[in-house]
């Protein structure tokens, strides 16, 4: 312990690479042909995606009956997956917006990547609310308040409709945020490339950016404004997703603690996922000095913190249920821990609360294999958290007569696998088509990249 001196800001990028070297390094994956490992990885993710596509096609053709959902358990895997992926999406905006507002410079190495993962996770997530409906072909249009020949509007009191707005806003804003950040990098790429077609593409995407400091001024302000908006937005999105449950009257759902609890959980799982992927990226593309061990350690600390927040929420739920004295409420929580789905609950609890405690040890925090396994388990645990909330509460609600046990089917599993396939396919394609690290931002934090006298 004690090797980090907190009184002084550490260099974010290890060593002092020349700026041109950074260009080379970051754009290397874009300029070189993918190697065999990439194709193998892509083959794996595409296979997963195909499995999901087959499951989806079957579900569309035969009906939602192919899933395990039944009468009390109206929502099963698709909604669990939706909440899970939306949660994954939270780390990106958190890193890029909230850490930006807190002036955490260590975010620069991972911000672009995390934002990309946000967008892919949200894309993956957005599929589920649509396909989980009985008539997806209509859901896609009926959920929008457009003037129609029935003169009907949507129901703005439904949390599902709030989701439509929240998730689409979140996607749009994240995307814009991401794109704004990419513009200077596109310009750099444009000026580096000798390929004519790439040149045209980068010209279009960079919109003719010329690194003008008259632009940088407004650009930075916009970035700040966007970060300012993205911060409450990211909190609102999972809050609203939690409203899907909290606004319902079901015992175990109807809980005021859900919004903060969901947000903490989302950050938790998002960080774990980003950390997982970064471990590979920094190795494969030799970014160890940009995505440093310090950065990873900091992420692990956040995982530890949010894990404890989540653990607090779990305990508080129990306390409040007991304190309320409402029998169905007390039962709902007892049932989670000791009912038919106790296994899911204890997987969730141990993966989310107990296992991250290992991060108290610095050695664990700085050990790649350890942190990888822990982060994977965190995501397993967080998936089960959504499962516990959704399925356990539904399977045993008010009337004992309508209770039933939910058993997932192969189709359910295929859609879950497919969602991972889609996400990782997008991630893989992203690493080969766009700079996974913000060139301009990294340059700005390399030692000696800012004036020394520093009049601010």
């Amino acid at each position, binding site marked *: 312990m004690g090797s980090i001196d907190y009184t002084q800001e550490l260099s974010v990028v290890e060593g002092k690479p020349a700026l041109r070297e950074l260009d080379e390094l970051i754009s290397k994956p874009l300029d070189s042909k993918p190697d065999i490992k990439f194709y193998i990885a892509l083959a794996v993710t595409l296979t997963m995606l195909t499995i999901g596509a087959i499951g989806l096609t079957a579900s569309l053709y035969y009906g939602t009956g192919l899933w395990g959902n039944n009468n009390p358990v109206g929502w099963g895997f698709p909604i669990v997956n939706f909440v899970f992926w939306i949660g994954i999406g939270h780390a990106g905006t958190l890193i890029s917006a909230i850490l930006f507002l807190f002036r955490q410079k260590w975010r620069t190495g991972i911000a672009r990547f995390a934002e990309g993962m946000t967008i892919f996770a949200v894309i993956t997530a957005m599929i589920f609310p649509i396909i989980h409906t009985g008539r997806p072909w209509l859901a896609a249009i009926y959920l929008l308040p457009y003037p129609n*020949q*029935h*003169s*009907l509007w949507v129901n703005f009191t439904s949390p599902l409709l709030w989701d439509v707005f929240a998730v689409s806003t979140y996607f749009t804003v994240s995307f814009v945020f991401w794109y704004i950040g990419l513009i200077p990098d596109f310009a750099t790429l444009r000026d580096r490339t000798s390929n004519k077609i790439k040149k*045209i593409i980068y*010209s*279009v995407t960079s*919109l*003719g950016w010329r690194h003008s400091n008259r632009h940088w001024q407004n650009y930075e302000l916009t970035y700040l404004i966007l970060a300012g908006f993205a911060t409450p937005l990211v909190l609102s999105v999972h809050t609203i997703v939690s409203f899907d449950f909290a606004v319902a009257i079901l015992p175990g759902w109807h809980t005021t603690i859900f919004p903060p609890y969901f947000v903490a959980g989302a950050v938790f799982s998002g960080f774990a996922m980003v950390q997982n992927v970064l471990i590979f990226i920094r190795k494969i593309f030799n970014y160890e000095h940009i995505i440093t061990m310090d950065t990873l350690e900091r992420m692990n600390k956040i995982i530890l913190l949010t894990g404890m927040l989540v653990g607090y929420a779990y305990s508080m739920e129990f306390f409040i249920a007991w304190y309320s004295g409402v029998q169905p409420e007390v039962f709902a929580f007892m049932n989670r821990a000791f009912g038919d789905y106790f296994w899911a609950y204890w997987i969730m609890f141990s993966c989310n609360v107990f296992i991250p405690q290992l991060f108290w040890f610095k050695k664990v925090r700085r050990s790649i294999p350890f942190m990888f396994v822990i982060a994977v388990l965190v995501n397993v645990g967080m998936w089960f958290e959504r499962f516990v909330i959704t399925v356990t509460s539904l399977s045993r609600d008010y009337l004992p007569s309508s209770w039933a046990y939910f058993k997932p089917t192969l189709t359910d599993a295929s859609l879950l696998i497919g969602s991972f396939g889609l996400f990782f396919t997008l991630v893989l394609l992203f690493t080969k088509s766009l700079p996974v690290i913000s060139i301009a931002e990294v340059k700005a934090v390399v030692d000696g990249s800012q004036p020394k006298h520093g009049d601010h």
Partner: protein
Amino acid sequence: MKKSFLDYTLKVRLPITLFVALLAFMITFYVSRPERDGIGYQPDQPIAYSHKLHAGQMKIDCQYCHTGVTKGRHALVPSANICMNCHSMARKKQPEIIKLTKYYEENTPIPWKRIHKIPEYAYFNHSVHVNKGIKCETCHGNIADMEKVSQMKGWTMTACLDCHREPQQFLPYLENVKMVQQTVQLVIDKR
């Protein structure tokens, strides 16, 4: 490629193209709407029956043939025996009447082409409307002037709602028409 051309494409041509696409969609949408709503559908009928002659000139009441209109949900196309009330004698030699007689004598129902239809998930009851004094023409147009019947008005849910929301405007001949916006829910998209 010239960079100016690139800029020009991005700044001018792209927006124009998008605008043109939007405009094309809007125009298509509005122009094709009546067709979508069934307005103007005028199929050939197996027997060239003229409402203009019967209802217009001879002033035979609609209910003479459409007997169900005050009694139930369906207005009913007349059974051939109602035609034969008169055409057992009247104009027996006319080719169309010969066709009619043939159907009647062979005991084959006349396969009229359906013009007006609301989807089966919607509920509309003729008798409720007619017994409240609403005239046939309000929805069907002036049938008594039609040689060959065609649909005159769109029968979308919006059309129902329009009248239920502002009955005074659509049913000026009725006194004491109340705002019936709420009752429209009873009618549309239910069951």
